[in-house]
């Protein structure tokens, strides 16, 4: 599935975590120009605009997103409880709204409902990279068509990495995005799981996960061709 457009860049961490845990593909943009410039070939699948810190900027962006040739929808805005007034007379700019601070269960329900109304699949179902395929529907992973037997956390880590190929993540970021609450052991926990994943990928494919010295890990080729 094509990525969701997210504003602002970077998004609030709790939003990023929600999206990642649910397996949404997404991309954060700084402004309307970036939204146009970075639009995927098939178009944005929808947008989540956080309006609680900079409402003017956020609604200006919504207006731009609605005015393009093919308006971007569904569009969900996140506003603070004290900002409900700001929604008045702006009904055409969004499809639904959700209050901050974010409650993950509510956010999930709203975004899935929006997508089902829009008549589109709500979930990205397949993540593929080279020989690796992850079916997010069935929780199954395979390399060269051979099933990989993973524990839950190994699967979650691989899913996160494979959904962001070419991107370098620090151990701390992986910990907060993939583990979330289960923080114990700190960054070491990440190393332990990377080591297990490489062993399960087998010698031939262990190199899919690169160690980026004194930074962290990267899945697949670098975006910069390094």
């Amino acid at each position: 599935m094509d990525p969701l457009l997210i504003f602002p860049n970077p998004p609030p961490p709790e939003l990023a975590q929600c999206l990642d845990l649910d397996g949404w593909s997404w991309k954060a943009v700084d402004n309307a120009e970036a939204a146009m410039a970075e639009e995927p070939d098939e178009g944005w699948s929808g947008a989540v605009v956080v309006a609680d810190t900079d409402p003017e900027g956020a609604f200006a962006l919504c207006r731009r997103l609605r005015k393009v040739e093919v308006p971007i929808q569904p569009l969900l805005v996140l506003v603070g409880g004290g900002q409900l007034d700001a929604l008045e007379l702006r009904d055409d700019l969004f499809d639904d709204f959700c209050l901050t601070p974010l409650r993950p269960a509510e956010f999930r329900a709203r975004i899935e409902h929006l997508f089902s109304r829009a008549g589109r699949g709500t979930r990205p179902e397949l993540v593929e990279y080279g020989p690796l395929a992850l079916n997010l529907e069935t929780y199954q992973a395979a390399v060269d068509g051979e099933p990989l037997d993973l524990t839950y956390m190994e699967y979650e880590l691989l899913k996160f990495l494979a959904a962001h190929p070419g991107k370098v993540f620090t151990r701390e970021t992986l910990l907060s995005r993939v583990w979330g609450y289960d923080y114990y052991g700190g960054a070491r926990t990440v190393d332990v799981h990377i080591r297990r994943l490489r062993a399960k990928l087998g010698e031939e494919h262990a190199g899919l996960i690169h160690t980026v010295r004194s930074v962290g890990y990267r899945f697949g080729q670098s975006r910069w061709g390094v």
Partner: protein
Amino acid sequence: METPDTGDMTPDIKPDRERRQQDQQDYVLRTIEERGVRLVRLWFTDVLGRHKSVAISPAELETVLDEGLQFDGSAIDGFSRIQEGDVLARPDPSTFELLPWADPAEPSGTIFCDITNLDGTSFEGDPRQVLRRNVDRARAVGFEMFCAPEVEFFYFADSGPVPTTLDRASYFDLTTTDVASDLRKQTLHMLEALSIPVEYSFHEDGPSQHEIDLQYTDALSMADSVMTLRLAVKKIAMDRGVYATFMPKPLNGVQGSGMHTHLSLFRDGENAFHDPTTADGLSDTARSFIAGLLRHAREITAVTNQLVNSYKRINEGYEAPRYVSWARNNRSALVRVPITKPGKVDSTRIEYRALDPACNPYLAFSVLLAAGLRGIEEHLELPAEATMNLYDLSRDEQRRLGVASLPHNLEEALDEMEASELVRDTLGDHIFEWFLRNKRSEWNEYQRQVTSFELETYLPNW
């Protein structure tokens, strides 16, 4: 130049814990469905560290994940007394694995269980709960312990009373034609498939003796891994008609099997044993932790070395420590502090050398952690390093230097344990008392045995 995504590091992310739990269960149930799993083995451990398994059908698993599996605890060594009756096995979905040696036509899965009382409270007879409790105590003061054991074992031709070795090779010998190295290779493969990465594996000093060094992980996962490893080693050997044993000292005059264990504490993602400002790189935390281990070493030995036979290994020396001491580069010491390579400060660790592979890893890691933490809590001073070879020490020298011995036999170890408030507190009353009763009776039975030593030495002469 690649730039890392350091984005969102707010520590106060409110996670959706319940949902994660549900996700893990879904993951297990979907995997079972997708892979056509026919049998799920629920694993747990009795107080003596023996692996227990109950097989259920996949159809039952969903209910068991939600509600637990009720069974009669009095059937398990060290669990409930008969009048107390039933307990619940609650699968820990994060430990779910497919068994790599199962028949591919009939895949089977395994899952470690926590044992609870019927009202859901944690069951005091379950060693996994003991370790969980001690890990939680460490977390409450900000520490996470990582363990990396080096597990030694022997391959024999069978499990009969006269051990027959498979080879006569020794340390690092290349024994390519040897069935044992083949076995080991296959075992490593299986372990990796079970999420148990191996650091090294090699042929040990003794004939037919092997060692597998595991890559560090947190204490609870490592205790699970040791249980799985023992099962995997035995199972793969058995398939080849060979017997693998973790008995600490199966052969006279040949070094026994130990389970030297590397320990480190992490706090906020940093190695708490490292301090760049000290001459040797060891922090006060590390010093007090070692001091705590040394102070309580005699009390915890019954747990780290629980068999009558364990003391045959300790008394004979070789790679086994006999004295309560620490050193940097002295393999006769009880606690060794390996040299940390420059730039590898995260690997700062200590090695406790008394354990043997017949221990209950949940209880053994618990007492090590508790003894070390007690040292930190009380800011214990580290005694002087033992620089001489302690194996050569005479009794007089030992007394003069004030170096204590580890207990010489199980009885002495049990006496020390019985008087230990630390061990009682660490294990909880239930396991503490059951363990002492069980082990006292093992010792008493042993005391009444006429041994082959006596028959060979006395019978011809008297």
